[in-house]
């Protein structure tokens, strides 16, 4: 095992221990104690707006395949989709979901169908509409732009793994929909997200949906663990800088 592997293994073990401690520490946390993330407040209002107006809520989950490095972004975006689908299905509606990757399409379709089944309210329910658009970035962007142009979309939510095509879809959304919310972790895409969204999930905020929207204890615990590790890394950087400066 080389030095990098030893360091990564150490980090992994520290994180797991901190996560387990965080899981039990955060059981008594109250939402008022968390840092407010404007995009999540805005999302709740946007869902209500789509329900009130009876127009579609479109969610696009990006094009991060579940078996590549972008899988975590896709899993995080699925955490954003779940509460949206839950909320809408209580009123008999379902979101219009699109993806730019086939494996992610299967995950999205599965999630939406399960939520529809589990929250059957007796009301007539809309059929889930989950579409795989295509596998190439430009064609994916063209597909989303077409949906925003032709279908009656009130709220457009775009979270997950994207490239430069985000700006094409984002600008189409700015011109066509009532409320647009975005989220990405790729630094090169963040300017596009900020300039085209009413509220944005930037960087690590994308991974907090499970904690903020569903209040899942393990997700809250991982937020605590992330904070602890961030402080540890910051202190470590400072210590190394001081040692290197003095020696």
């Amino acid at each position, binding site marked *: 095992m080389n030095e990098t592997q030893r360091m990564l293994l150490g980090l992994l073990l520290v994180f797991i221990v901190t996560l387990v401690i965080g899981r039990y520490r955060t059981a008594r946390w109250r939402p008022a104690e968390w840092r407010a993330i404007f995009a999540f407040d805005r999302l709740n209002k946007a869902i209500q707006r789509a329900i009130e107006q009876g127009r579609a809520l479109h969610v696009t989950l990006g094009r991060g395949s579940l078996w590549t490095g972008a899988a975590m972004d896709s899993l995080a975006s699925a955490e954003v989709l779940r509460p949206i689908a839950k909320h809408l299905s209580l009123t008999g509606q379902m979101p219009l979901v699109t993806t730019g990757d086939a494996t992610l399409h299967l995950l999205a379709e599965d999630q939406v169908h399960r939520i529809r089944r589990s929250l059957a309210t007796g009301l007539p329910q809309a059929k889930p509409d989950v579409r795989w658009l295509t596998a190439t970035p430009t064609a994916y962007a063209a597909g989303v732009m*077409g949906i925003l142009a*032709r279908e009656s979309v009130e709220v457009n939510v775009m979270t997950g793994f994207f490239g430069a095509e985000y700006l094409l879809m984002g600008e189409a959304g700015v011109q066509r929909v009532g409320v647009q919310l975005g989220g990405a972790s790729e630094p090169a895409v963040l300017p596009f997200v900020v300039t085209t969204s009413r509220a944005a999930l930037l960087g690590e905020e994308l991974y907090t949906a499970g904690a903020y929207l569903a209040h899942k204890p393990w997700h809250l615990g991982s937020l605590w663990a992330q904070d602890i590790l961030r402080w540890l890394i910051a202190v470590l950087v400072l210590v190394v800088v001081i040692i290197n400066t003095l020696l």
Partner: protein
Amino acid sequence: MLGRLVSVSVAMGVGLLVLADYFVADVQLDALANRLIYIASIVAAFALFLGLANLTRFHLNRVRARSPERPYSLILLIALTASITLGFVSGGPTSQWMQYLFENVLSPMQAALYSLLAFFTVTATYRAFRVHNVESALFVIFAVVVLLGQTPVGALLWEELPTIKDWIFDVPVLAGTRGILLGVALGTLATGIRVLLGVDRPYVDETGRDTHGHLP
């Protein structure tokens, strides 16, 4: 219940084995991990077939329903069938005909769509340049300095502008980007570990017993 147990065990077992392969130098473990990754790639390829089926079904339904978008769906279905047929007849994606199709149909269309990015960047920048609070004012000041510093006219106006531009890139921008990357890395790690430990199970049906997944 048994199905859920099997799914979780398989997912955790496979994930931990592949992770262990990164840390342990063992030939047999390496072979096993490579085999598992190979199987995952085959499963991912099947997902593409299912995606294709979804796409075809959606557009066939639209044609049958005589929706106003029927012509677009017809074009898509014809192009899809033609490309697949051509691929099979001509000898696969690397054949001369398929390469011709890519170079003369797909690539120009992609380039045309990407060319819109230049115009969209201008409109997005125009919106971003509206000053409505301290942060946006700072943003505009930094953006103007960088824009002038990037162009020859900036150096003519004030010779220090390119140096200031370089400092903005090397210090605040780099520091901010590293901060974002650090947060993203920790978020990715957290998501990965939750899946690996079986805490998050997107592959099993939990909606019926998800007591914590209450609505926000």
